[in-house]
């Protein structure tokens, strides 16, 4: 499960920011996750508690902000929604679509004290 590695990275990011931003407890973590990214939200939520145990985010909650997938068609240049990496252009059916958003996996906000 690579969700474990992602969460371990979250934990070290929190620890580094605790020093620079001067907080002791994390109450909420907002993650921005693209709909086309390879992150499984259930798996993240499931592993969260065990990875954060004994850390400053032990009792933190997770908030997900889902970023919809969107691409630009290489053939007709129009914007097209994407829910899978292999979606074709909704306007002309072409499969060469350049992905503009939906691959994000970021921490965007912490609620701390």
């Amino acid at each position: 499960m690579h969700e474990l590695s992602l969460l371990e990275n979250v934990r070290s990011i929190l620890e580094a920011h605790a020093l620079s931003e001067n907080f002791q407890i994390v109450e909420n973590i907002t993650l921005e996750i693209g709909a086309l990214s390879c992150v499984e939200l259930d798996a993240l939520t499931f592993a969260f508690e065990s990875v954060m145990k004994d850390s400053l985010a032990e009792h933190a909650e997770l908030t997900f902000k889902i970023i919809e997938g969107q691409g630009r068609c290489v053939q007709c240049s129009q914007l097209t929604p994407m829910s899978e990496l292999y979606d074709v252009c909704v306007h002309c059916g072409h499969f060469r679509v350049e992905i503009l958003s939906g691959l994000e996996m970021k921490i965007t906000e912490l609620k701390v004290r």
Partner: protein
Amino acid sequence: MCGICGCGDSGGQSGKFVPIKNMSFSPVMSSFQYHHREDSVEKSRLIQMEVDLLSKNNVYATKNRHYFQEHGVFVLNLVSSPGAGKTTLLVETIKILKNFFPIAVIEGDQQTQHDADRIRATGGRALQINTGRACHLDAQGIGSAMMQLGIENNSFLAIENVGNLVCPSAFDLGEAHKVVVLSVTEGDDKPLKYADMFYAADVMIINKIDLLPYVDFDVARCIAFALQVNPSIHIISLSATKGDNFGEWTHWLRSSMEKVIKSHAL
């Protein structure tokens, strides 16, 4: 004065020392343990940031990539489901190309030294990393492995990732290309089912084509699916054990190596 927040507390007469229970004591955190707090109830606040969840891995991957560029090392990260033929492909590649340029292999498996032993049997240099429960290699592990292995200038380094079509897709190791190996016994719809991996890869090898008469695998359909996920993926069909079309792969590898060596010489 409190070293953390500069709050002016000098010994705890007025304020309270609040031990934070069971913190993870990475060295950097231990100074934090008895951080002074004015009131027992502090107000919450929001901090905005934009930090990638893979940031730590990506920092190491960038370091590795710099090292490879500086030393003219051409690096491929081989990924596939278990048993698709990554080690066989490497063994046969070393047999054919070992006199053209130095070749080293980093083998990632959850357990055993078997694959590294198979590489060494060809006379190739190999280092085995056992990832234990981890289902992928990460850039930090590759960084220390390559120092241990000692990589020559102007050489080819193959990294055989853990057999897994999901997790390794997200972890950049600093390679030039991810090469996904798909064998014909796995089904021609795999590029859609594991789209993340085929999206992340630059090269797809369809392996075990000697078995095509015995399995229901439509090569054209598989190629169409792969191109749908990744229109620029380069595709080579071959048999690693029987040698069918193996030359297309070694030719691609040699010309890629030549480009790397040329640009390193500049």
